[in-house]
């Protein structure tokens, strides 16, 4: 029992941290937030540096890393610009990972090499206006027509939908609630596909969209996993959940790390200016609590990941992890805002930026309430 990263994981962390230090100074992060534009340039640079290969199998030109590698990448990136981990998800998670887990060989052969090179982006069209936590309540229709299906309906909160090349689109193909959902690889250049980005509190630049499908035509070969996978999108999605939860957890850890550091620097400066004072105890204790919560979240996240890597069933644990990390991250960010005072409330401060970004994380990827439902069920309740 020990907490140890492999040498290649340590290398990945250093490489990612170096990328962040070089390419994402605070001004760059602030600018992405201010302009609310997808970080195309940073994405391109990430690709050039080989970060898209992390989780792609060797035979497709990748590094064949596991969830821990993905988390290391996300944590380091999130320290400076959390939204970039979501954008990276358009390649690593909703592209490569989905195809590795649920695609068929033809789909993998077609897309993985190009994903590894940064030539493609995917997005994940699941949520609809009336289906949030109730994710199975999918209404978008996919009606067979010869060798094709014709898709009609609307999606919402699809990140990267206006910049992606392929949208993994969930549709209703049979009445059975969970057994009648089919996932298609939809070319976003198809006629009838239209995506409009939403303005949001945070995670600006994620290109989170409302998407409309009007008679979008897709070949049955583009069913995720191939034609035989019709009506299996729900179990396909279940296979992704553990990884998604852990990836989001890593993002929260990166965020907390920076919040804690910013607060430490802030109070140190204040002490240099006005001297040590017992009056600062309250704020110092707040920071001690924040740092402790971060440490607990970090240990929980990476140990849960190692369960997953070791093939242990860990639905309960990943749900706990996502729930704990997101709620803790929100709490730590709020405490950070309080510690930073008026300074933290300005747009120049990374703490408010990270606070706005993390506020999504108790919602996206399954709300805390849904995670608790899952945990309770796994506890036999």
């Amino acid at each position, binding site marked *: 029992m020990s907490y140890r990263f492999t040498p290649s994981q340590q290398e990945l962390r250093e490489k990612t941290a170096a990328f962040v230090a070089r390419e994402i100074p605070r001004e760059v992060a602030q600018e992405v937030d201010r302009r609310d534009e997808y970080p195309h340039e940073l994405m391109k640079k990430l690709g050039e540096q080989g970060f898209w290969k992390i989780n792609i199998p060797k035979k497709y030109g990748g590094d064949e890393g596991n969830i821990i590698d993905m988390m290391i990448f996300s944590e380091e990136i999130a320290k400076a610009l959390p939204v970039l981990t979501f954008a990276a998800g358009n390649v690593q998670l909703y592209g490569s990972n989905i195809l590795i887990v649920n695609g068929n060989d033809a789909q993998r052969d077609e897309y993985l090499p190009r994903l590894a090179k940064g030539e493609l982006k995917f997005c994940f069209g699941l949520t609809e206006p009336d289906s949030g936590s109730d994710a199975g309540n999918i209404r978008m229709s996919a009606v067979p027509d010869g060798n094709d299906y014709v898709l009609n309906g609307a999606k919402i909160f699809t990140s990267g939908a206006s910049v992606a090349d392929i949208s993994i689109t969930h549709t209703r193909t049979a009445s059975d609630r969970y057994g009648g959902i089919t996932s298609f690889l939809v070319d976003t250049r198809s006629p009838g596909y239209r995506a409009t980005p939403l303005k949001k509190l945070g995670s600006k630049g994620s290109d989170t969209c409302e998407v409309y499908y009007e008679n979008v035509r897709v070949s049955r070969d583009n069913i995720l996993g191939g034609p035989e996978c019709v009506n299996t999108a729900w179990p396909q999605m279940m296979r992704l959940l553990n990884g998604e939860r852990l990836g989001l957890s890593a993002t929260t850890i990166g965020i907390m790390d920076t919040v804690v550091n910013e607060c430490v620097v802030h109070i140190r400066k204040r002490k240099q200016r006005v001297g040590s004072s017992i009056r600062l105890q309250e704020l110092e204790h707040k920071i001690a609590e924040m740092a402790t919560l971060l440490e607990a979240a970090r240990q929980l996240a990476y140990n849960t990941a190692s369960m997953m890597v070791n093939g242990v069933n860990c639905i309960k644990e990943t749900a706990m992890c996502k729930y704990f990390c997101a709620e803790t991250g929100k709490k730590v960010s709020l405490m950070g805002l*309080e510690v930073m005072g008026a300074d933290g*409330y300005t747009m120049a401060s990374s703490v408010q930026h990270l606070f706005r970004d993390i506020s999504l994380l108790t919602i996206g990827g399954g709300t805390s309430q849904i995670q608790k439902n899952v945990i309770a069920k796994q506890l036999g309740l």
Partner: protein
Amino acid sequence: MDFDLNLENTMIRDAVKDWVSKECTREVVGQLEEQGQFPQELFNKLGTLGFSGMMIPERFAGAGVNTLAACIVVEELASAYPVLANCYIGPTFFGGAVISELGSESQKERYLEKIAAQSLMTSLAFAEPEDADVEFTETTAKQRGDQFVIRGEKAYVSLADQAELLIVLARTDGAKVDDEVTLFCVDAKAEGVEVSRVDTMGQWGANTCDISFNDVEVSAADILGGEAQSGKGRQQLASISDTVQLAYAASAVGMAQGAFEYALDYARQRVQFGQVIARYPAIGHMLSDVAAKTEAARLMVYRAAWLREQGKSCSDAINMARCLGAEVAVKSAMDGLQILGGYGYTMEYDIQRYVRDSTSLFSAGKSLDYLKEKISESLVQLDY
């Protein structure tokens, strides 16, 4: 005890509520938010209601001091549009209350009538870029004959770009101890005053500003309360702090209520798994908790206002109301965001605004830990 508002205050509440429901509609507020500018037009309309004189005695053209009513106005405005509440606090509390209580006779004559007509915005320039604590005030006021020359930087001054009157904290030449400071009434348009806006996460329109004072000349008569108050800023600040914090406490309760109603409204309509989500304990209990804490904070504010009106000791009551208010305002907004989920995270829905605005309460006027420090200092001396 009587927990009913009296007739006058009931009417005032009804009038504000009515005005707010008509003028501060979601559409109007949404547009103003997008512009991110001081809501001049809406503020002018508010001025016609005559509520800016609520902390000013009648002999200075005020409505007669009615602290509770002023808090109610703040509360109602904040529940729909927190920025507007802050705009109202400027003349009414920073201007009207402070000048009425601490101003010299000539200052009262000079300012109060215009304040009561809501045509004179007042800002409090106390904090500095490096520190919000009085004893670290670095802004100086050097005496030159009958004049003082102010030099220094002030930070995070609400609405300074709209203000005509700035009340400025400075250290005079003669100051012997760290907390011997003086408050000056400074014309915001005076030569040497430079105001620059600071972008903030929320409270867009209630513009936060930095101010440079580059050898700004004021006379000894511009010392708040007159020349005799030179060096006595510290005591004046204690009284001002009560005024300011009471206003923010009321604003906090309003925000809590606004965010709560918004979230409740959504939760009563949004269906998931075949049921409106308000029926799920996970959501319903969140709402009931916020409802209870908002009501409790409201009572604390009213009691504080009542104590102040009665001339009783009220600093603890105010600071407690302010701390509880901030706690529930942020909680209400954050819980509301959670309840609205993905929709709440978009700018299309108002709950994100409550999140951005309510978090200003961590540092509005004073930090929460400073206020708790004050309460605990008082507890230590308390006689039970």
